[in-house]
Structures are given as C-alpha cells and as structure tokens.
C-alpha cells in the first residue's frame, strides 16, 4: 500500500502536499481507481451477462467444449420455447398478480400505520415498533406449518390469497420504515392548516400528506414489489397446481418443453432473463430512490 507516502504528504502543509502529488501519481491513482471500479462492475454483472449470452445461443452451441463465449449467430429459439409453455406464461401472470396485490395492500395498511407512528401518540406504540422490527427478522419457516394446515382447512391452497397474505405481512416492515421516514420529514404545519380549514385528521392525511409523500410511497412500492416478486418459500408451499405456480417456483422446477437428455440450460437461462427483466428495469430507472429507501429502512431500523 501507499501508507508511507501518505504519512509524509498529510504531515506536510496542504499546499506542499499538493505540489508533491505530481501529475503522474495523480494519473496513476486515477487509472488504478478506474481499474478497480471496472473490476467491481464486472463482478456484479458477470453472472447476469453470462446468463444472457447463454440464453441467446441455440441448444446445440450451448453444449460445446471448448466454450464459445458469444452467441454466433444470436438465436431467440429459447425465448420462443418458454413462451410456448402454458406453465411459464401462467407463472408470469401469477407472480405479477400476487406481487402487485401484496404491494397495494401493504401500502394501504402500512401507510396508515406509518402515519400514526410519525404523527400521533397512542397506546402500545412501542409494542408496535418492536413487533415491526421482529417481523423484519422473523424466519418464515417458524409459521409455515400452521399456515399450511390452516390454509388447507380453509380451502385456500392454490388460492392467491394464501400468497398475498404472508407477502403483505413480510413486506410491512420495509413499507412502514420507508413511509415513517418520509412522513416525519413533511412539515406538520400543512396538515394543521388544513385542519384549521375544517378537515378532519384522516382527511388531512389522505388529502395532504399522502399526495405530498408520493415519492416515498413510490419508493416503498418498488421495494415491496421486488420483495414479493422474489418470494419463494411460501409460493413453493401453498401452491401446487401447475397453473398457480409463481415465477420463482416455476423456474426452480423447470424441466423444459421436451425431456431431452440434456438439462435445458438454454430455456432456463432464457426464463431467468425474462423473470429478472422487470427487476433490472426497475433498478436502472429508479436506482436513486431504491438506494435512499433501502438505507432509510436499514439505518433507522
């Protein structure tokens, strides 16, 4: 490392340190820094990129030794293959339905709760805060047995509700944290003036606070949707009919269109890309919001 050089430069006066750092060392540091940044970006993206490349190869060229890295020519046959499967199309619809419904319900319940936490004093508030924190760390396996038996008894297996309810519960903590942070940053005076004008507290909440906190609500929505879309444990347990599986379960059990000798990596990688695409698009479009929401949730937790 450059420890000795640094010791000298920081000990000297700032102006002297500047002149000591010649253009060459600056350039060297700059290049080294960007080499690191590029390596890090490759580290993050390589598995995804390799999956994308594989998905664009024809089945014959996937199983070649030595490996050919670039699909030549690119081939969409895997994508046509998976979209021809009823199971896969259903899985996408199911995931979209479950994740959207869970997000919407969690937002409604969570925003009411977050507002109460941010603005009102009420009994059992500390108990509620402790419960929310506990749910964020709660292992789903600890409740899966009773839920499975109960949903069976109520005839809820293979019903969307059986997935929506647990997803709502486990997305609530992030929802409440992000929204509480947003609500408490809004000036209370706006609501107060609305109430002077004759609004009730609840009216002030949904007419003034919620619209003003729209960026926060949107951030929460993205985080909740990603979490619900990725859920696997409950989806695997409470759904068994092929047309009720969500995307995560479908890909975990993927067997391809024909039971050929080779494991259908072409179609699996294509399905992986399709399932991941909504998430990657969300990430690319809303990276700032996602990061601020995530760190708000974690730092204040």
């Amino acid at each position: 490392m450059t420890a000795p050089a640094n010791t000298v430069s920081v000990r000297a006066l700032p102006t002297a340190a500047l002149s000591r750092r010649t253009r060459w060392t600056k350039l060297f540091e700059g290049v080294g820094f960007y080499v690191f940044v590029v390596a890090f970006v490759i580290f993050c993206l390589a598995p995804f990129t390799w999956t994308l490349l594989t998905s664009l190869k024809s089945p014959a060229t996937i199983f070649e030794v030595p490996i050919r890295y670039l699909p030549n020519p690119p081939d969409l046959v895997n994508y046509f293959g998976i979209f021809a499967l009823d199971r896969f199309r259903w899985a996408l619809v199911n995931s979209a339905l479950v994740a959207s419904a869970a997000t919407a319900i969690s937002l409604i319940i969570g925003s009411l709760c977050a507002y109460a936490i941010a603005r009102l004093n009420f009994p059992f508030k500390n108990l509620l805060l402790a419960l929310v924190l506990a749910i964020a760390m709660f292992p789903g396996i600890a409740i899966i047995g009773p839920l499975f038996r109960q949903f069976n008894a109520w005839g809820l297996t293979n019903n969307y509700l059986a997935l929506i309810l647990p997803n709502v519960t486990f997305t609530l903590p992030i929802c409440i944290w992000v929204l509480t942070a947003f609500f408490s940053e809004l000036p209370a005076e706006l609501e107060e003036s609305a109430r002077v004008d004759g609004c009730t507290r609840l009216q002030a909440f949904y007419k003034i606070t919620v619209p003003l906190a729209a960026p926060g609500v949107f951030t929460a929505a993205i985080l909740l949707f990603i979490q619900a879309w990725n859920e696997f444990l409950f989806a695997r347990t409470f759904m068994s009919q092929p047309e009720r599986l969500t995307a995560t379960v479908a890909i975990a059990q993927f067997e391809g269109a024909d039971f050929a000798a080779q494991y259908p990596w072409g179609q699996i990688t294509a399905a992986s890309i399709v399932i991941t695409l909504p998430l990657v698009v969300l990430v690319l479009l809303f990276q700032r919001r996602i990061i601020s929401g995530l760190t708000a949730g974690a730092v204040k937790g």
Partner: protein
Amino acid sequence: MSTSAGRLTRRLAFVGLLGVRGRRGAQEHADARLGLLMAAPAMLTILLIAVIPLAQTIQDSLFQISLKFENAPRPFVGLDNYRALLSDDSWFNALRVTGLVTLASVAAELVLGMIIALLINRSFRGRGIVRASVLVPWALTTVVAAKMWAWIYDGRYGVANDLLMRLHLIDQPIIFLVKPEVTIWAMIGAEIWKTTPFMALLLLAGLQLIPNELYEATALDGASRWQAFWRVTLPLMKPTILVALLFRTIDAVRMFDLPRVLTNGGPGKSTETVVLYTYNTFFTSLNFGYGSTLAVATFLIVVFVSFIYIKVLGAPTQGARR
C-alpha cells in the same frame, strides 16, 4: 420524540385517569384513538399471520403429528420432540452448515463491502453505472441467482472451469457441485456475490454521514490514512456496521432458497441448512410435530442472534432513532 413524562401524561389522559377534559386533553384523546385505529390493520395482520401461527407452531412442537395418513392419531408427547432434537445428528449437521455459511459469508461481505464502500465514497464519473450495477445482484431473485450459479459451476460446460483453465490456474476441471468440501464453498461464493453489493451500499450510506472536516482535522494532527480509518471511521461507523451485520446474519441464518435450488442440500447433507432441514421434515417427511420443534429451534436461534446484536448495539441506535 416527546419526553417520557409527557407520554405518560398523555397515556393517563387516554385511560381517563387524569380527568382532563379541556381542549388539549380531548385532542390528545382523539389522537390516541385515531392512532390506534390507523395502526390496527397492520397490527391485526401481523397478529393473524405471524404471532398466532407462531404460537400454534410452539403448541404443535409438543405433539406427534404426521400428515402421512389422513386420520393418524396426534398424541401429546410433551418435550419428547425436544429430547429427540438433542440427539439428532442431522440437526447438528444442519447447525454446523448454517454456522459455517453464516460466518464465512458475513465476514467476507463485511471486509469486501467495506473496501468497496471506502473506495467509491467520492464523486467520480460513472457513479450512476456503479450504483445501478451494485443493485443488480441485490434485486435479482435468489432462485434465479442459484440457477445462474449452477450453470456457471457446471462440471462440463460451466464457464467457471473454462475461465480458470484459460488462466492456467487449474489444469483439471473442478467438479464444483459433487464434492462436499468444494460444494459448500461454491455455495458460499454465490452467497457472497449476491449480498456483498448490498453490504457495500449500507456501509457507503454510513460513510457519507461522517463529516469531511473530521478527516481534515486528523490529517492536520499528523495521522496517517490508516490511523484515520481505525480511529475515526470505524468508531463512527460502529452503529451502521452493526445494523448491517445484524440484518445480514439473520438473512444467512434463514437461508433457504439458495441451498434448495443450487444443491438441494447435497451432496449428502453437506449443504443442508437449518431451514432447509426443517422444511424437508415438514414437507418431505410430513412430520409436522418434529418439524415444528425444528422451526421453534430456528426461531430461537434468530432471537438469540438478534438479542446479542441489539445488546451490543444498545445506546447508539436509541440515540439515532427519531
């Protein structure tokens, strides 16, 4: 947040003990009622879907419940299931696997995440690209990531072997997912890839809260960058690091998706985590009594780990909370 005395007064006002029926008292009374009302749906959901089922799991753990046969008797067996747990080799194996995976992956994530966070804690061209690419492994479905790594690790057509051979780091392909001692590290590698970026992100957020003036002052006092890191950065980062570690440790202890899809616990039981073993006891052996005991044990481990972290964390978070 208001003082505890104020809170107490308000609470007393709520239960009507103070008898204050002035304008203020009535307003606070109304606020308390509205607060309870607004929080009720969330509290009810948590109660119905988490708290009550948890109590049911604890109760089930005292019974012998098999779903293999429709009308099998379900006798009360007291603590027998827990006694069985203490002599269950599979459970201790799962505990060892979970412990190793948690320790190795969380330690690597912390060190790597810290290095990354320190290096990108400045403004530079292309920051947006870095931020977006950091989020890709985090946002990616774990099940999908597991499939991706299974394909990368493939013994014959996997790109990992191909790259290592081309770089002349190995002369024989490694069969990643067949030998227990290799497989578990392959799984840990996939876990580190998936979660390090998130760790870096949290740590970066913590770093950005440290005012630059502090570093300037330590530099004027003649401290090296290394000293500044140990004396300024780390102490100030302690709460952030602990919160990040808490969440990552709990996540690692709860690990299910990755081992289930990448290795299904194999070869043998060499990558069977606690949650995966519990899951299989429920839904493969259909043994809901003993499964519940395992589930309760898992829950207690999570409680224990978070208790230790929160104990260590103590004062700083209390202060940081609004």
